[in-house]
């Protein structure tokens, strides 16, 4: 991943920041430039709580090159408690133990490191709610 692109995404990658429409309150993740609900373009920063549940998951054996060192891993759609769904990876659990409805919380992990020389991309993944582990 390009350094500039991942640098711009740091607020969403590290803090789960999205946007909240100042007119209608609609939430978006990642940040948007036009509200999907009312069409206007002014937003506040909204930091999602990071709690949610698994909607659907799948075990990945053939991964894009950047993620190759982590196979097999669990890819999933997680619905945040604010109602937004995001595509993510599930960690700290055996992939076959992930199932729909599983409560999860956001953690920050190394997503890709591009060998030994490149920049390290840190971003969100989700792990089973610690209280349930």
């Amino acid at each position: 991943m390009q350094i500039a692109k991942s640098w711009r995404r740091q607020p969403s990658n590290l803090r789960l920041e999205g946007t909240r429409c100042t007119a209608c309150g609609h939430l978006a993740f990642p940040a948007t430039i036009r509200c999907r609900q009312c069409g206007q373009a002014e937003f506040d920063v909204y930091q999602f709580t990071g709690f949610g549940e698994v909607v659907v998951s799948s075990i990945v054996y053939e991964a894009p090159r950047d993620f190759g060192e982590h196979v097999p891993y669990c890819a999933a759609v997680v619905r945040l408690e604010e109602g937004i769904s995001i595509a993510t990876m599930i960690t700290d659990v055996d992939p076959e133990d992930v199932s729909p409805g599983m409560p999860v919380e956001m953690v920050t992990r190394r997503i890709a490191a591009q060998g030994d020389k490149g920049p390290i991309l840190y971003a969100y993944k989700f792990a089973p709610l610690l209280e349930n582990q």
Partner: protein
Amino acid sequence: MKPNLAVGIVGYGGYVPRYRIDAAEVNRVWKDSAMPSGRSFKAVPGPDEDTATIAIQAARNAMRMAQVSPAKLRAIWFGTESKPYAVKPTSTIVADAIGALPHANAADWEFACKPGTEAMQAATAMVGSGMAPYAMCGGADTAQARPGDILEYNTGAGGAAFILGVAEESLAVLEASTSYVTNTPDFFRREGQPYPSHGQRFTGKPAYFHHIQAAVKELLNETGASPDDFRYAVFHQPNYQFPLKVANRLGFPKEKVVPFILTSQIGNTYSGAALLGLAKALDQAEPGDKILLASYGSGAGSDAFCFTVTDKIKEIRERGVPIDKYLKRTKLIDYAVYARYRGKLRLH
């Protein structure tokens, strides 16, 4: 040493990765006679974890407990000897993740296993001088050991973070702190080398024991306290025996020390070790308890601290994550998975 303005801990948090390897499994592969006696495990970071991710989770847990605005943290200082980048601070990544940037000082501290307590002294001075309302300090490591080395039995992974603020808001107030430092080459790693070198038996008497004893004696002198005045004592823990032995020499009975020696469960977490022990002690402390903390870092030195727990501890602590949660969350792996997770297999 003590700041003009009284300072204390307003929140703390720890983190230990999920994976464990049994020392007996390391021994199965290497058949080393130096295997520690008794059952012991060490924590192993997952393939997507490193010192930065460990520090971030510890920092988040500390923030959750302290409930202070991240914009009021003027320093985010983590100590480690396993930085993800050789050049590029780890603490800026942590500070960004908890939303403390940009009006903050962020730096990595380095002193073998004791940079976290050095950062704690500096953070104390920063808050105690009135320069900052709050400052975060901590230590985290994913210690590496050469395969087959005696260190491989217990080089663990974990970390802890502390937020310091004024005494009135604190769950534990810092009474005093001392440092005892010499130029001793007991353990080192040269630039570009993946694994450290150690001075075998040289690491004990003139290093660990001498420095901790000197720092703690100075602390007792300065505070006028005796070992009897302390409810708990936490020492740096490269193994199970050293902290017990140094406690005995200083006159601290076993029962004040044993609950906070985590090495048989998670190994030696280096910069995280003494601080995770302190977090565990705070998890069970009562108002009025005095807690002793003494770190050790090769190279060499020890920082000693005396804390007195306040009556705010119960309501503040309730918002945090007990260290026990992480100690009990375990997934045992074998040496092959461990070798993969720790990057000991070269794929290309």
